[in-house]
């Protein structure tokens, strides 16, 4: 082929045409490149700021820096809750080779079921690979040693530093301090904007951890971290805001009393609350069974959660403020006040008890088969005579009972600074109409007169009520030493209170509360049994199966002549208050009055006194 066809030999026309078309190509080249350059100009010069910001947003992530949660202290400065450093064993998933082999060896060395580990690894699949899988939280030296000794087996296992909430007293403070956990979706939805909560924040879930969450939590800081397209952080972070650690919280709780109370409750199910009747400062508060708040510090194993949630005894529920019981005979304290104040009876009014009384054509029994004989209000209260109060109730009527009950804060929350307080029930004609849509029957009043029937109270309400009797003012129970909780003066005549106080002192001296006696300290109190089953009336508690027994109450204060401590203890199915609840009170009071009691032979008390760091002399007045 001969391609060498010179242009000068070509026809003029075709050359013209080609030349025009080459020019067209030239124009196309220039137009296109200049046009593209204009688009670059538009992006890089006009839009520079906007795109620079977008690139920064791409590049920078705000990583929250969690604040350190505030410390919770007891009234003497003993630590009830703090944050401690902890170590986690983690599996680095980036560049993970032979995951199965490592998991199998971990199972071998640490005894974590292989299936569980494998499952967790699968669950992490949706997360970026630089997030490690936590194999075990809060490991000890022994476990680290197990892994470190076989380092070559575990190329991908590392140790990660973290921090955990720590409760040195564990179960003893469960229902006072509560526990913490990661914020839930619903909480986020409810208060996200206001409280500034974010996914992953640790918040209080119960107790003062929850009640004072805002101040304990502190304020999250943040740092700017450069991340790549998959979100992996690079290089150094730039702190944008230093986190503000939570403030510490000082409680009115006395850790020694708290421990003693929980210990004294032992295996019993129930609740107890001890407070300073003059101020409302709660010294000890327990609900049993409890739980160990330390369990919630890390990741809660599902099995543990289930066992806590499914336990019929509801260990997570705070009975001291959240459960209500019939007050039983303890209500006779209020009945006496109401009777004397309303003028239905005087201090000298007498009733003859034969062991039963027929009211509205129905027999109502006294607990004492032979009857109490002739009793005035003092004796009726000391010996807990039902007949006296049946008749008083009949004479007074429900409206008077409701009026004086309300005066002592029954039927409403006491205002204690804990989440989950219930109002319980102070029945009235209106209440029954509204709630049950039934009329009030005269018989209802008779039941309420001895603390049964429709009436229901919480332990904290009981403690508040006896504090009122002890001091003449109804205090607001509280656990925080800060804040203003002024007591409310009672509109009750001193003479009335004097009659009731004298009787309460005699209850312990010679009546049903003898088991609460302390040498040298006069305790005032009242026992009560709250009926669980109708059939328990008049039957000896010991003969009944545990779950059929009545709930046992013991409420009161000490010392009788100058009250410094008030209390309410309820033992579910405890039978008689005198036998089960009163001894619990006595043990706690022993610790409270330790210095004023004759030298106790009990070496344990000695030990408790000397090994308490930061403990002060219990004899010191509990001034705020």
């Amino acid at each position: 082929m001969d391609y060498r066809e010179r242009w000068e030999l070509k026809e003029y026309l075709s050359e013209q045409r080609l030349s025009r078309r080459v020019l067209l190509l030239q124009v196309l080249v220039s137009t296109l490149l200049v046009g593209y350059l204009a688009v670059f100009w538009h992006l890089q010069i006009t839009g520079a700021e906007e795109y620079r910001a977008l690139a920064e947003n791409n590049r920078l992530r705000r990583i929250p820096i969690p604040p350190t949660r505030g410390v919770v202290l007891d009234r003497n400065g003993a630590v009830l809750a703090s944050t401690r450093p902890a170590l986690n064993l983690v599996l680095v998933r980036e560049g993970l080779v032979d995951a199965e082999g490592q998991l199998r060896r971990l199972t071998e060395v640490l005894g974590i079921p292989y299936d569980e580990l494998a499952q967790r690894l699968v669950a992490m699949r949706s997360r970026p690979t630089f997030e490690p899988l936590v194999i075990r939280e809060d490991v000890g030296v022994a476990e680290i040693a197990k892994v470190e000794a076989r380092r070559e087996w575990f190329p991908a296992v590392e140790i990660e530093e973290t921090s955990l909430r720590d409760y040195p007293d564990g179960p003893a403070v469960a229902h006072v301090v509560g526990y913490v956990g990661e914020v839930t979706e619903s909480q986020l939805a409810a208060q996200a904007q206001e409280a500034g909560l974010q996914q992953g924040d640790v918040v209080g879930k119960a107790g003062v951890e929850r009640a004072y969450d805002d101040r304990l939590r502190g304020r999250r800081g943040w740092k700017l971290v450069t991340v790549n397209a998959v979100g992996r952080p690079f290089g150094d972070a730039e702190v944008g805001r230093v986190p503000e650690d939570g403030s510490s919280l000082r409680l009115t709780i006395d850790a020694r009393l708290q421990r003693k109370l929980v210990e004294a409750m032992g295996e019993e199910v129930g609740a107890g609350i001890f407070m300073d009747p003059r101020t409302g400062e709660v010294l000890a508060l327990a609900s049993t069974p409890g739980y160990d708040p330390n369990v919630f510090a890390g990741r809660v194993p599902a099995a543990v959660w289930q066992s806590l949630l499914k336990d019929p005894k509801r260990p997570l529920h705070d009975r001291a403020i959240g459960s209500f019981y019939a007050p039983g005979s303890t209500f006779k304290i209020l009945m006496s006040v109401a009777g004397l104040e309303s003028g239905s009876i005087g201090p000298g009014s007498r009733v003859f008890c034969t062991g039963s009384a027929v009211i509205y054509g129905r027999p109502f029994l006294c607990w004492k088969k032979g009857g109490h004989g002739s009793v005035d209000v003092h004796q009726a209260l000391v010996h807990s005579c039902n007949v006296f109060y049946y008749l008083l109730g009949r004479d007074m009527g429900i409206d008077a009972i409701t009026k004086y009950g309300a005066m002592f804060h029954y039927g409403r929350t006491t205002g204690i600074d804990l989440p989950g307080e219930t109002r319980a029930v102070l029945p009235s004609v209106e209440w029954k109409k509204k709630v049950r849509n039934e009329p009030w029957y005269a018989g209802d009043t008779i039941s309420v007169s001895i603390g049964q029937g429709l009436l229901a109270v919480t332990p904290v309400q009981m403690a508040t009520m006896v504090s009122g009797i002890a001091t003449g003012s109804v205090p607001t129970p509280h656990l925080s030493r800060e804040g203003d909780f002024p007591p409310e003066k009672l509109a009750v005549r001193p003479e009335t209170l004097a009659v009731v106080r004298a009787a309460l002192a005699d209850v312990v001296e010679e009546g049903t509360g003898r088991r609460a006696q302390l040498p040298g300290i006069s305790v005032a109190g009242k026992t009560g049994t709250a009926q669980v089953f109708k059939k328990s009336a008049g039957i000896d508690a010991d003969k009944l199966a545990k779950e059929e027994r009545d709930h046992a109450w013991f409420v009161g204060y000490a010392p009788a002549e100058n009250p410094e401590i008030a209390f309410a203890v309820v033992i579910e199915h405890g039978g008689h208050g005198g036998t089960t609840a009163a001894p619990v009170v006595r043990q706690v009071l022993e610790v409270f009055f330790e210095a004023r009691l004759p030298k106790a032979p009990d070496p344990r008390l000695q030990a408790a006194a000397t090994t308490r760091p930061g403990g002060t002399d219990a004899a010191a007045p509990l001034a705020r």
Partner: protein
Amino acid sequence: MLRRRWLGRLDVATLWTTLALAAAGLLAIASATHGDPARAGLWKTQLLWLMVGLVVLAVVVAVDYHLWAEFAYALYGVSVVLLLAVLLFGKEVGGNKSWLDLGPVAFQPSELAKWTTCLALGAYLADRVRGALRLSQAATMGLIAGLPVALIARQPDMGTALTFVPIFCAALLLGGLRWRWVVGAAILAALLAPLGWQRLKPYQQERIRTVFQPERDPSGVGYQIRQSKIAIGSGGLVGKGPFEGTQSGLNFLPAQHTDFVLAVLAEELGFIGVAAILGLFHFLLWRGILAARSSQDRLGTYLSLLVVSWLLGQIAINVGMVLGLLPTIGVPLPLLSYGGTALLAVMSGIGIVMNVRTRRFVN
């Protein structure tokens, strides 16, 4: 004596332009991969390819283009055979069977086919066409261009197949196809477009839709375009400096050392850098047109212009894609994108242009 004569007339300007662009490519590849240990050495590989490319270019320039044209059909045949081989024994990378595995290196016959198709079309035009192009001749050229396109589409590598279209269109234009046919074909294409749309795979349709609505799919195709625009825009006037690009350094950019290499340069060297790159391309293409205009015969004119059209087509598609004006299809930027065979092919093409320019005087 003879050698001295053409060496003295060697088109040095074009050579330097080529080297400058390749160097910018090396910089961009190095920057785009420096954060990734697995790919950090790629620029060295590319540098080796560039060395080889210079040797190939020397060979292409040294042999008179008339001789290349003599062998055009043979070379074309070889590349078609290689395209068949790739379909049979090719190595699949990312869903495309485009590579022949030659031990240490992988070879992309489709890149070679661009060069041989230019040769074949140029030879055909110079040899057969007198005056205006007849329809039968246009059809023959359609076959010459269509055969590699069909084979490449089977890989399936739509991006590379698409780059043959500008070459073919240029051949028709140079052949002197009457404008009425051009207009007619354009109308026919417009009418057939809906059918072609239906033939496209869903993901390809998605890519085309994304051009018009980048916000459609911020994580998929739209994401790529968006990240590319962020990289370009955030470069500003002078850029963030070499190796300082956050978009590429942190892997936000897709295919940042291959198809989106210009976005890396735009981010790091800014508008000034981009203007320099586009300026160099402009100069290169103009040199090609100059070679065509000053060629001593038709063949030189045709070959130069076909190469110019090929490069222009690839530049237009790639830059348009990087700017988010065109659908995302894998078309590398000549001389800059990472890829050995593509570099060799483009340098061979430039070799032809230099060849024509160097031999513009009748001896």
